[in-house]
């Protein structure tokens, strides 16, 4: 029966090696092709910088419109998602009766498993429905896309809020209660500040998911050349969609290089958000577990 040990050993060494090597090759390839693109004109092309940033002049050969679209999506999505997500998490962690916890927890779990393309399809069906009923001139747009993205990241926001509140030591809420704090006061002045880093780290993870998701926006209003986003009710560009589009439709080497540049920008964005969220999470853990041992 020694053979089982040997099989496991070989499988683990081979697969660890495979994963490391493929990620290294992938990153090396992306960096080699993408770094030459990271120059001043990657963002704005030949358009004067100030006018491009303000959207006064169209940018034809840069990725600024896509970046602006992604930033807009991030801001809108987070403004839709943060309050319901964190509020619902607080409810689940502090107030819910076991039965409510069961029911809402199930709903959140189920929502977390929905593929993003189905969420995009939901947005598409929703706008068709609205066209038939209240908004005959409605069309897919940035507002709709960020609403669907907010639904997509809501479960992870709720889960991270719940886990950072429930991870706090119990003496904290007991002490607050003993000092005569009401539940609401304890939450506002003790528990939320203590769990703040964890909640923020969850928000950053959700932002990373928003920035990278392509399937939702594909069905809810992203297009290849909308220019600088004109408003909440207009079509828009976005970085991940730009990458997807470039892979299939690039016309010349220059466009391809721009695609690689866009990938590096996207990776920087999501990698930065991931690092930030780690840092906050670690700080939270050190504060409540490390020092007290």
């Amino acid at each position, binding site marked *: 029966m020694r053979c089982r040990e040997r099989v496991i050993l070989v499988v683990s060494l081979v697969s660890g090696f495979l994963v490391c090597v493929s990620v290294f090759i992938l990153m090396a390839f992306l960096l080699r092709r993408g770094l030459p693109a990271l120059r001043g004109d990657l963002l704005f092309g030949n358009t004067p910088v100030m006018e491009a940033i303000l959207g006064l002049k169209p940018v034809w050969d840069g990725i600024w419109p896509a970046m602006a679209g992604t930033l807009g999506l991030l801001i809108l999505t987070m403004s839709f998602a943060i309050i319901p997500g964190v509020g619902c998490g607080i409810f689940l962690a502090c107030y819910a009766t076991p039965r409510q916890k069961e029911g809402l927890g199930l*709903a959140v779990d189920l929502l977390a498993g929905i593929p993003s393309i189905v969420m995009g399809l939901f947005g598409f069906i929703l706008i068709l429905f609205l066209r038939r009923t209240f908004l005959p001139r409605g069309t897919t747009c940035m507002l709709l896309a960020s609403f669907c993205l907010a639904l997509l990241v809501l479960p992870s926001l709720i889960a991270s809020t719940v886990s950072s509140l429930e991870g706090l030591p119990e003496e904290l809420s007991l002490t607050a209660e003993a000092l005569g704090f009401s539940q609401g006061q304890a939450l506002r002045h003790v528990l939320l500040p203590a769990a703040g880093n964890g909640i923020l780290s969850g928000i950053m993870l959700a932002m990373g998911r928003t920035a990278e998701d392509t399937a939702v926006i594909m069905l809810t209003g992203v297009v290849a050349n909308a220019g600088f986003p004109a408003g909440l009710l207009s079509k828009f560009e976005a970085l991940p969609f730009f990458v997807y589009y470039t892979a299939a439709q690039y016309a010349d080497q220059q466009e391809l290089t721009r695609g690689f540049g866009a990938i590096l920008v996207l990776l920087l964005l999501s990698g930065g958000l991931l690092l930030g969220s780690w840092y906050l999470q670690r700080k939270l853990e050190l504060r409540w577990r490390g020092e007290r041992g």
Partner: protein
Amino acid sequence: MPPPRRSQLWIRSLALGVGGVLASVFAFIMFSALEALARGRGLSLFGNLWSPGAGQFGIMPMIAASLLLSLSALALGWTVSLGCCCALHLRTCPRLSKLLMGILRFMTAMPTVVYGFAAVFLLVPLIRSALGGSGFCWFTAGVVLALQGVPTMTLVMDGAMASLEKETGITSAALGFTPLQHLVWVVLPSMKPWLFSAAVLGFGRAMGDTLIPTMLAGNAPQFPASPLDSVRTLTAHISLVLSSDMGGGEHLSLMLSGGILLTISLLVSLTVRYISFRGRRR
């Protein structure tokens, strides 16, 4: 057990609102899928042929492709994940384990579109020259999908393995087990439920992924005869066939595909939940 507390009104209404929105998402998609079924009687939506010109809107090839692609990606990805998870806990070289963990964590943040893009320019030419065909095929998409699914599954397994190892580590060290023996004979047999739930989760992820199949699998609506054939998954079908033609067969097939994907994801979530409940009770 603290006494029941009354929550503030705004928090309660937020929770209620979130619950309502979630329910309406399910209702909307399921209702549209049923409507598609009802209205699409003459269009043979569950047929074997996709040929809009001839009025044939069968999505059976897409369902088959989705299942085949995600099961094959799962078989590869799950094995690699199990290996990675063991490699993380072997303790022969802690520094390498740490490196592997860092890479896996990094992979969770990697956008799917990046995998797709890199594979179009790296893997596809390689497969085209080595195995023939166009390179955009079931095999390519399966490999990349497997790689993309590895971090999720490994992290699930790793969580279970870490806690089991802690529980039994001292005992088996006292009995003279080496770390490898401990892993193989004590930890692995007792983490079967988690291995299964990681597999279910990975299957759900692979089923629901859109970008990799769309960019790499070639998108021909057909039953594949070999791994080098081009296939079109349900998700790719939705992203490709976006018609605003309200009553058309294409539109109905889209709704039906969405309903099928939603049903599968519900089954996956319920299974994972059930397994973890049973695990906790034990």
